[in-house]
């Protein structure tokens, strides 16, 4: 118990201890142990099916883990709805397929949760939304519907929507995988800006350039386990594990 109360003081904002998860009989996450410090950018890479998306989805309880312990900002994830909601308030998430609400305008997409969850007055919420749209570079799209925007613009709106809740942690689940090559850069630029501003970020991506440039640490996963954790220099220049070497040789 003492360990739990210390965890916040220890500077780790996400802690996974022996996390195991199964989909039916299939063992997707095997003994995951991992810690993320505050203001750290951690990139998770790995072949598809390696469990990296499942891992970050476990962190805000979109998936439920069966064994082990996940602590976010010192709060343990359990079935307690209050804890889950508290953690979700602290973490913003950006999805591969954007998942904007198509029936709401960009402005409504960004203000809905602020007003309903944070109980912010309409005017404040809209000010915040305009500020964030400015920050992601599309202030002029506020009154359009998501269907009228390009993929890159939609993903930037999705980032703005997550940021509007003023989270301590941002989770990115392959944010550029569904985008045309021409649009990947505009999203990555926003993410780099975000990383420089000191946001704690956990990013699942296949963008090796981004990982090399921005990440503080890189986690490599394969078949449900963590294979290697290291700094980008170490990871890309001089990987230790055979599996990592194989993976890198195939993609670089």
């Amino acid at each position: 118990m003492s360990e739990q109360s210390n965890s916040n003081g220890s500077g780790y904002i996400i802690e996974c201890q022996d996390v195991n998860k199964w989909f039916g009989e299939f063992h997707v996450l095997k003994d995951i142990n991992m810690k993320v410090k505050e203001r750290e950018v951690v990139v998770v890479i790995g072949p598809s099916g390696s469990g990296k998306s499942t891992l970050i989805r476990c962190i805000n309880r979109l998936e439920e883990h069966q064994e082990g312990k996940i602590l976010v900002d010192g709060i343990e994830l359990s079935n307690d709805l209050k804890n889950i909601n508290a953690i979700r308030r602290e973490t913003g998430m950006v999805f591969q397929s954007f998942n904007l609400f198509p029936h709401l305008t960009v402005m409504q997409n960004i203000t809905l949760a602020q007003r309903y969850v944070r109980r912010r007055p309409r005017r404040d919420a809209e000010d915040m939304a305009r500020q964030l749209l400015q920050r992601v570079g599309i202030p002029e799209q506020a009154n359009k519907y998501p269907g009228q925007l390009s993929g890159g613009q939609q993903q930037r709106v999705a980032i703005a929507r997550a940021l509007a809740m003023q989270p301590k942690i941002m989770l990115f689940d392959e944010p550029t995988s569904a985008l045309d090559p021409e649009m990947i850069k505009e999203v990555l630029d926003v993410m780099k800006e975000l990383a420089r501003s000191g946001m704690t970020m956990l990013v699942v991506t296949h963008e090796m350039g981004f990982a090399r440039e921005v990440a503080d640490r890189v986690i490599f996963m394969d078949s449900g386990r963590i294979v290697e954790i290291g700094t980008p220099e170490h990871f890309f220049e001089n990987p230790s594990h055979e599996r990592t070497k194989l993976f890198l040789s195939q993609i670089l």
Partner: protein
Amino acid sequence: MSEVYHRPDETFYVAPKEPPPSRRPPALTIGPVGWLRKNLFSSVSNTLITVITVGLMAAFFYELVTWSVAKAEWNVVNNTMRLMMVGLYPVDQIWRIELIAILLVFLSGLGLGVWGGNARGFFIIALMIIIAALFIPIGAEKIEPPPIRFLITPTDAIGPVVFVGDKDDTVRLSVEPIDDNAIANETSPFVGFIENSPGSSSSRALWNNAKAQVVAGTLDLTNYNLQLTVQLLDRSGKVLDEQLSTPTRRRVNFEFKLPADGWYYVQVLRDETSEAIYETVDGVQLPIAPARTLPNTGYAWIRIDGVDTMSSQVADVEQRTKTYGEVPAIQCPSAAECRRLLLEENTRFEGARSFSAFLKTQLDPFLQEIIVSLVVGFAVMLAAYSIGNFAKQSRNPSSKKAVSRVTIIGWIIFFPLSWILLSGFKDPDSVHPFLRLPEVAQSLWGGLILTIVLTFVSLTVAFPIGILLALGRRSKLPIISIFCILFIEVVRGVPLITILFMAKFIVPYFAKSMSDTELLIRLLVGLTLFTAAYNAEIIRGGLQIIPKGQIEASQALGLNPFATNAFIVLPQALRAVIPAMMSQSVSLFKDTTLVSIVGLFEFLGMIELIVNGQQIYRPYQREAYLFVGVIYFIISYIMSSLSRRLEESGAGTVRKMRKA
């Protein structure tokens, strides 16, 4: 040849700097001609299909329209309009229904004005006004009974014509001799023609027969030699007054003031062997009718004005029996004649009616009934539209906001208010004097207003229940989902009529406290549960098309399950199922006809009651059912048009989503 755009013989090619200029498409492929060529006459088989289909449609509509104009007898609709529209709803309370109709038109006009509308919006409201107008005239003053005419001929006996009258009512009797062959080609003698006497043979049949004879040349109407006596009698058979019509003094008019309230009847006696009749004028005896030497020939109308004869309206008949007693049994001239029935082919108009005669005898009486309410309806709509449009175009945005808020609030209170207006208060003295509406028992509601109440009450109540059932069926809690599945499947597995029978017979048996509940309420509950089960399945279909990512995104933002459903899932799911929901609603609207089987007379049930239950209307089933069909179609069309408008309007419509 400096610019060449296409050189297929070269392996390598670089396009010139400027693209070629745009040209117009070939003339035959665009515009109406292009549309026709592309859509109707693109190939031989397509042309054939077009011609055959258009031909069949034209033939059908030609038949329908010519029959409606030239042969149909639309007065059955006119005469029974009140029953069809409001059933037994008390006449002096019909203004409440009128008020509801006016409110409906006003709110629709306001909405159209403030939110903008296209031509179809106006068209829908115009249809609503027409339907609403049908409710209005029937509450007006009692329709003046048309004059009664019956035909008298040399060979056919005429039974007595029975009517009721109050003290000091004036009855006018007149004889109109038919002594001109040209009359046989006129149709006007049938205006206001009513058959009602227990023993009379059908005047219409006789007249058709006479016409045929005139046309064939076997009957000459100018050969008039009819002598008859017109008698007015009270119910005991005492002759109150009588007048003689002779070949020389044919036209007879006389008035009689009734001595007391009660039943009276008119009888005609043909005089075949009379003596000469004399009248004393200034002390000199003058013959006014010579002794008959010629055989009785010729035809005449006997016309009765100012009396109230038969009534098709149950309430009237009850009232009449209460006031005047039972209909007297009157001796028929002979038993055989009393047994004659009015056969359909006898009472229908024969031959083709001209269009002007159609306007005069069929359309005009109908229009006269509804013209005032149509004008009022359109005036109210225009006024409301102007207010809405004025607010919309006003420079002050708050006035638009205010008017649209008033419109929304108006719609929200419209439905409960209508219910209160319709049913009134059990104890009117307990409420504010302004609202002192006497109760109208639900057993008196009937006709189209009952159909509308059944449809809209069960639709509005079933909608939220359907949503809850759909969400419940997807619930992770097994008890809730099993309950919902069980409910939905049981209700969907049972015919609606069974549910209605259960509501009528079984519910009061199991739940004693329900046995006092009005039948209407019990049937409404049945219809509501039935609709809710179907709606639940439709909504579940809508829920399934919402991608899981939407729910995850909403959860990731910290929205709780209630907010996720209310703000994210349901708005999208419900919009996607508008077409299916509306077709379910239209189908419910038509299914309400089933309640007539368990004893509530809604629109169709009322028509059946009228045309099958009343002998005089039995010949006019075709007209009555056609009218019913048209009204059902118009209302269904209004409903589906509204749903299309709903689909196309509002934030993030389907269209906008598809544009992605």
